[in-house]
């Protein structure tokens, strides 16, 4: 059997010693998992290596760790593919990020992950009247929230969330995906209150910066960022919730900016996000942003000429896209989770890694605005 070297981040609070790296060699088949490697180490070499694990089939969500720096379920990562991403032939395994380490590969999920989950009222608030039998709801709506129900609370997305790294108070990808599970559920009676709460929270749905890390990190195809974007679209388009964080205005300014220019005109976007250049709200925001603007000019990210007179105007095909979308009687959401048609040829999931359930062949699904 081939040998693999696992370099494990060790830390034991019992000893008081600082965290250190320790190398172990395991012999396993290439298709066996990094968790198999860790368990072999525990069984044969050192039983004190700490890692949570249970199902070994990517359903319990216990064994989230960072492998070669990126979050994965250890049971869901083949040794061979881990070797491939290792660079130097040594597979590094360390605890997830954004959460305090308790021992070795075990992090305190209560202190971060579960606290955030509890923040979003994570239970169904039944819409009244509660029927005697089941709620009658569109089949599609249940399929739609199955994507966020597929979340196993492993914490991989939390580990890799860049916004949370900057703002530890950010509610974060897992909890916001959980929030969508209720906002997308027609049986829930609190949609407006939930949306308003998440929009108004300065660490809420508008705190996400679209870095896509959570989508890449998720081993179950939950695509948390997509759920956050859905929350935003529902909050702004369906409920017109204008928040104090300027999220609503920023989104609308962005859309208008593209409609007008085709390419983003950054100098307009900032003031427009606060209500326009001459709005009292915009003045302090602009003054506050001066250092960033100066820095951008100095680094030539923008030039003065381009910043003041944006040379680009929206071409006809961009205008046409906007026209088509504006003319639709209802907003459409793509359900990228359940994909594939009877007669198609290309497998829809074959193009990315295990996390990529959304690459091709999707069937657009109608989403009626919240009834």
């Amino acid at each position, binding site marked *: 059997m081939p040998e693999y070297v696992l370099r494990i981040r060790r830390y034991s609070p019992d000893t008081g010693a600082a965290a250190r790296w320790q190398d172990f060699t395991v012999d396993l088949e290439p*298709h066996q998992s990094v968790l198999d490697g860790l368990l072999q180490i525990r069984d044969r070499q050192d039983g004190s290596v700490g890692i*949570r694990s249970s199902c*070994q*089939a990517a359903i319990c969500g216990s064994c989230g760790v960072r492998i070669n720096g990126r979050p994965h379920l250890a049971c869901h990562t083949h040794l061979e593919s881990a070797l491939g991403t290792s660079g130097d032939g040594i597979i590094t395994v360390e605890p997830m990020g954004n959460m305090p380490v308790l021992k070795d590969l075990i992090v305190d999920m209560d202190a971060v992950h579960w606290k955030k989950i509890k923040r979003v009222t994570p*239970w*169904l608030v039944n819409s009244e009247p509660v029927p005697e039998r089941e709620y*009658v709801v*569109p089949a599609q709506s*249940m399929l739609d929230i199955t994507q966020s129900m*597929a979340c196993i609370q492993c914490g991989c997305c939390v580990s890799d969330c860049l916004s949370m790294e900057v703002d530890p108070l950010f509610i974060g990808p897992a909890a916001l995906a959980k929030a969508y599970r209720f906002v997308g559920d027609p049986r829930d009676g609190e949609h407006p209150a939930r949306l308003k709460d998440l929009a108004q929270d300065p660490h809420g749905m508008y705190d996400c910066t679209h870095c896509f890390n959570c989508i890449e990190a998720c081993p179950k195809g939950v695509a948390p960022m997509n759920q956050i974007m859905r929350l935003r679209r529902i909050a702004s388009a369906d409920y017109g919730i204008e928040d104090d964080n300027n999220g609503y205005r920023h989104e609308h300014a962005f859309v208008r900016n593209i409609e007008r220019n085709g390419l983003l005109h950054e100098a307009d976007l900032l003031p427009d996000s606060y209500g326009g250049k001459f709005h009292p709200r915009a003045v302090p925001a602009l003054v506050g942003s001066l250092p960033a603007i100066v820095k951008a000019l100095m680094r030539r990210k923008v030039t003065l000429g381009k910043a003041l007179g944006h040379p680009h105007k929206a071409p006809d095909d961009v205008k046409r896209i906007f026209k088509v979308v504006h003319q639709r009687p209802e907003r459409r959401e793509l359900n990228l989770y359940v994909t594939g048609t009877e007669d198609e040829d290309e497998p829809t999931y074959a193009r990315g890694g295990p996390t990529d359930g959304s690459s091709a062949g999707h069937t657009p699904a109608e989403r009626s605005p919240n009834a």
Partner: protein
Amino acid sequence: MPAHDVLIIGAGLAGQRAALAAAGAGATVAIMSKVHPVRSHSNAAAGGINAALNPEDSWESHAFDTVKGSDYLGDQDAIEVMCREAPDEILWLEHAGVTFHRNDEGLLGTRAFGGASAARTYYVADITGQALLHVLYEQMMKHHRQIDSYEEWFVTALVQDDSGACCGCVCRNIRDGSMQLFSAKSVILATGGSGQCFKPTTNALICTGDGMAHAYRIGAPLMDMEMIQYHPTTLSGTGILITEGARGEGAHLYNALGERFMEKYAPNKMELASRDVVSRAEQTEINEGRGFPDGTVALDITKVPRKRTLEALREIVNIGRDFAGVDITREPIHILPGQHYIMGGVKTDVWGATPVPGLYAAGEVACVSVHGGNRLGANSLLDTLIFGRRAGEHAAERARGMRMPKASEASLQDERRAINAIVRRERGSGRRVSEIKLELGTMMNQNCAVYRDHEGLMEAHEIIRRLKEEAKTAYIDDRGTVFNQDVLGALELGYMLDVAECNVVAALVRRESRGAQYRLDFPERNDADWLKHVVLTADGADVPKISASPVAITQWQPGVRSY
């Protein structure tokens, strides 16, 4: 010392349902689990949950299928309770937020499942158990004021008062290694199964038979322990489960000659016969040389329309790709029978009460017995919820008006001493815990599997006796207090050895073939002598004391079982 009306050990579906029911009945509740509740093994039940909810269906039909599936060993009074209460439970779950599949009219939709005469399995894609577990945890978060949740606490022993009633437990806080005594008026075991006694198994690493061993050690009887289910479709090596939902959606089984062999064994129900029947058929094909060289047969899901597979069997599309390198929508996948479930467990009545006062059990740890010799697919989730709820209600009722017992500190000291003794054992003083575990699992999967005989079972028992001795000196590496998973592994090994011994002894005792128990030396069912439960008690003796308990028959006399 923490004290609660109802203390629940284990936080999978049975435990959480019990907690919600007990809290709903006004009791103060503690629920304790060695893992975070959503890590529980209820997650793995993929296919769905049975209930005769359709107006065209009837609970009697569901009950009869269950009785027949059990090979007439199930207790019919308990089966009636379960099937009668199933529809309301589904509606309770739906109202609690479970995102059950809907049909085109927006009503709850069903799929077909093995051994059932109607399509009565309700489901959420193929993550039904996961969806249920996470929705119950949502409800636990909602009711956090009434329910104290002790997550990552490991129970080392149950505690009894002078009269023999169960009045609490001793446990270890995994996070810091501290030991704690808990008092309770009623204690409910909901610790799940014991699949780790077998290797490979579809069961998670946490399924080490803890509750069965705890109950057995304080004198509660275990029943039907010989009835161990091998699931027909698991991946070789890893034991990962391919849901029965695949066959429910229309997948076929083939041997290496390309024959759809179920035609020989179950001409009517074919792939959807009871699990024991299908597993035996596969094992026969493999044993008689018609399997593939890797000792498997083929499951062909390409029969199912691709879109339907991607929609309803998404998880096994992923499993095929990630764990077997197979695109199941395009080619067959190789499978074999694998240890999956134990029908037996702590003997209870229809309220989950065991013969030990104050001690209840629900879910896979328990044996009511609704599954008898063989459990039907999609009846396990139902079992956990119905009897979890009933145990929760009854335990709360028992606690009402009762004075809080005080668990004795002596047991805390005993447990502390026992753990320290394990931690202090010198390296090399004996075998590694992991070695003993591996030997046990491999042996059980050979000697106590789909086909059994006297000789193999006798050998198994001898080996277990030896392993029990070796476990007394087995050593571990970790001397720490924070997340010392090593020492927990040593304790779990002790539980597994107790449970495995009961499995083997019960299989030796039952000299007939019924349900999951197939004795090569007694190949026929023998109602005259063996239409009864095998019951085992510790009773102070070194080996289990054997007795029998009658099977409750209400309206279905034992008949020929063919599919």
